[in-house]
């Protein structure tokens, strides 16, 4: 066991969780102890920033840190809101609970250990070992809901880590529109390790928008594991702008015939930020679909990386998968890494991917200049358009405006804001 893994087991023992939940937590810690955390020598972790983990305090931040509603984004009309501060449910800041919601600490079923042990889901084990609370959203047959879950990191890493947790289960034909946000209360150097599980039964539909906008000194690791059954559909849209260093791990299994996932991710890195994401989609059943889009911009000295892997098992005849991954460099010391990967074990497939990394398109830039636009404005406009491939898919107007404003801010362009 590595020194780091050893420390994690000790910290989790010291945290002294009791009852059946405690046993599960200890089991997760032990499992993590035996597989260890990844290193940059691991193929799927080579672009992530892992060094800071060695100095990390993993003990959960205490309950009771109070924040004011002012740090929260404006509510989105029609959505129930649930707020968690450092992983603890904050009812005072939440709107009246709607269908299917339970805070995990209060739920009958305490957090289950992550199903996928080891491998790329190791940070989910870390979450399972330490998570205090979290949200559970369970919709019954044919039910319908709209919910916003806001995770606020309020503590400095020195005080404790934040373990957001979200478990989603949609029964047959259920539909959920979900907004998941990660942000900070002020400029805290938080350590955030979130885990999210998604279960979609036959014909269920999940539309999920996740926004990672943590403070500039935060360190973030998240793991999303999804299982899709017959005919279910998952639309995921992610926008990552925050944190000093963020790593997102997305694991989806298309286990039922006709299931489909459509993911669009945008990432923006500036200063010395690291934005790394890994998405592994496994086609298990027949006639399953993947649509994957990534748009990343690396400015200054930032590194923006995306590794998207599509695996087609022998039984997944009729698979259709498309990947479009594009990175833009906007800084003399910036770095873009893109890896579109295909691993295919049957012949009845249609898979394609395209990846580009580079600068803005010369012809587009010239066109704008020839219309009299300032070079700086023209460049920002094209960056905006580049990201729009991803965020233009947001169909909730209020949310779209918020995201656009955030991105315009990130591109330092008042003019873009005015256009919204």
């Amino acid at each position, binding site marked *: 066991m590595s020194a780091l893994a050893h420390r994690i087991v000790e910290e989790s023992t010291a945290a002294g969780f009791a009852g059946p939940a405690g046993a599960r937590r200890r089991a997760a810690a032990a499992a993590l102890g035996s597989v260890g955390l990844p290193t940059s020598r691991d193929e799927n972790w080579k672009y992530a920033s892992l060094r800071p983990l060695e100095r990390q305090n993993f003990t959960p931040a205490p309950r009771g840190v109070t924040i004011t509603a002012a740090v929260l984004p404006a509510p989105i009309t029609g959505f129930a809101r649930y707020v968690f501060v450092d992983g603890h449910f904050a009812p005072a800041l939440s709107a009246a609970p709607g269908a299917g919601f339970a805070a995990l600490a209060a739920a009958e079923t305490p957090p289950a250990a992550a199903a996928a042990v080891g491998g790329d889901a190791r940070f989910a084990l870390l979450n399972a070992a330490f998570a205090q609370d979290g949200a559970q959203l369970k919709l019954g047959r044919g039910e319908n809901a709209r919910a916003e879950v806001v995770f606020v990191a309020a503590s400095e890493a020195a005080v404790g880590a934040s373990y957001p947790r979200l478990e989603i289960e949609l029964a047959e034909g259920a539909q959920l529109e979900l907004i998941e946000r990660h942000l900070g209360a002020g400029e805290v150097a938080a350590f955030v390790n979130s885990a999210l599980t998604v279960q979609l039964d036959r014909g269920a539909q999940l539309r999920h928008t996740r926004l990672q906008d943590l403070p500039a000194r935060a360190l973030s690791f998240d793991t999303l594991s999804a299982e899709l059954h017959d005919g279910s559909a998952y639309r995921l849209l992610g926008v990552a702008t925050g944190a000093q260093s963020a790593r997102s791990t997305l694991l989806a299994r298309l286990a039922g015939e006709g299931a489909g996932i459509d993911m669009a991710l945008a990432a923006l890195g500036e200063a010395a930020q690291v934005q790394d994401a890994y998405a592994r989609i496994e086609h298990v059943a027949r006639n399953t679909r993947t649509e994957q889009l990534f748009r990343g911009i690396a400015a200054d000295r930032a590194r923006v990386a995306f590794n998207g892997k599509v695996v087609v098992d022998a039984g997944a*005849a009729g698979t259709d998968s498309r990947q479009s991954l594009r990175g833009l460099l906007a800084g003399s010391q910036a770095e873009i890494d893109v890896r579109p990967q295909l691993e*295919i074990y049957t*012949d009845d497939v249609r898979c394609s991917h*395209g990846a580009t990394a580079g600068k803005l398109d010369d012809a587009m830039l010239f066109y704008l200049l020839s219309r009299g636009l300032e070079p700086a404005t023209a460049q920002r406009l094209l960056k905006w358009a580049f990201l729009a491939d991803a965020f233009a898919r947001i169909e909730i107007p209020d949310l779209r405006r918020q995201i656009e404003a955030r991105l315009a801010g990130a591109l330092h362009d008042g003019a873009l804001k005015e256009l919204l």
Partner: protein
Amino acid sequence: MSEETRQTQAELESLLARGYQHGFVTEIESDTVPPGLDEDVVRLISRKKGEPAFLTEWRLKALRHFFTMAEPHWAHLKIAPIDYQSISYYSAPKTKKDGPKSLEEVDPKLLATYEKLGVPLHERARLAGVAVDAVFDSVSVATTFKEKLAAAGVVFCPFSEAVRSHPELIEQYLGSVVPYTDNYFATLNSAVFSDGSFVYIPKGVRCPMELSTYFRINALNTGQFERTLIIADAGSYVSYLEGCSAPQRDENQLHAAVVELVALDDAYIKYSTVQNWYPGDADGKGGIYNFVTKRGECRGRNSRISWTQVETGSAITWKYPSCVLKGDGSIGEFYSVATVNNHQQADTGTKMIHVGRDTRSTIVSKGISAGHGQNTYRGLVRMLPSAQAARNFTQCDSLLMGGKCGAHTFPYVEVKNETATVEHEASTSKISEDQLFYCLARGIGAEDAVNMIVSGFCKSVFKELPMEFAVEAQNLLAVSLEGAVG
């Protein structure tokens, strides 16, 4: 599936069973060192070849380093464990004296072998105009067209001869592109390499003919570790062809070669390979383990290195002919067709490392998988911070025939210069039933139809091959793949 396609498939599957056509063994007395690997074996090889001290030392350093290394493990290759101590690291056809001095002295049986392989060894051979250096097991047996080349100032000879005739070039360039510490198999090769080809093209010379080496593994339980070094001096050009075959044996045989290319200012090296080592039988028994390190360095401004490969043989192929583009304005190219059938596995691709400004690279990879074959493209395109305005374009397509094979695409795109551009495109699909049906509807037999479609699929690579090779490659492809439509 329609009845028609079903029939086609059955027909094609029977064609697939057609065997390896180069799997004969030549009965020749050979001088083989006993299996095993230690410093004494390395010294023995070096002594047998009358090498200067610097080379013996270099080999020993490589060997010592080899013993500190762990064998690599790959997620996508299933490899039976290799016992490096049971391999014989040197095998040479026995001759009366030191070796053949001219074609007349070459063992007629050997010449007959090459004839069977279709190698144009003899001056009167069909493909006159190709200069051939033939490597049989580990030793270079004959080099043709010596005089004509010598007149142009071109050095083209067995590596072991170059060690004696041009030691200064060997000392300067050997290991300068692929250092002996590079990777497990390159390190092993550095310690035990027995022969190979050496080419030097002087300044401003356009090599007057295609140069060619034909490799063959003949002896039982031998590994083949050849080493090729090509230096193209400023403003020169050379086209180099490499072909390979091996007899049919039940055991796996190891082939761990190293090829180093150096292109100076404005030089252009075109390196083409048709690899047809024995792939093993239909059940995956036997076959060559082909672990090759090929790398070219474009050292000079506006230099160019182009790799073209057609990989149809071997049980396992592991190779990534690469280019390090150091010179400003230099160009790297990689064109590849790799087929796997039965239980073959191929893990191949390239690395393009852009160092200089305005460097350009093109990658075209066509993978074809049939039977239980697993075909992996692995490619790295890296733009270093110094690679101002560098560009890459990659096209990488896979064709699947039958539901039990696999096609995998693992590109790495790493860009650290904001003026550089990388574009990668890939697609994977099965052979189009529409195209197939179209051909059938025009009265073309299934076998021909598949051949037509596959060679259309590979066309952009074949057109990069020298003419003589393009024909051979087409034929090989047809033999290794005919069929398997699922």
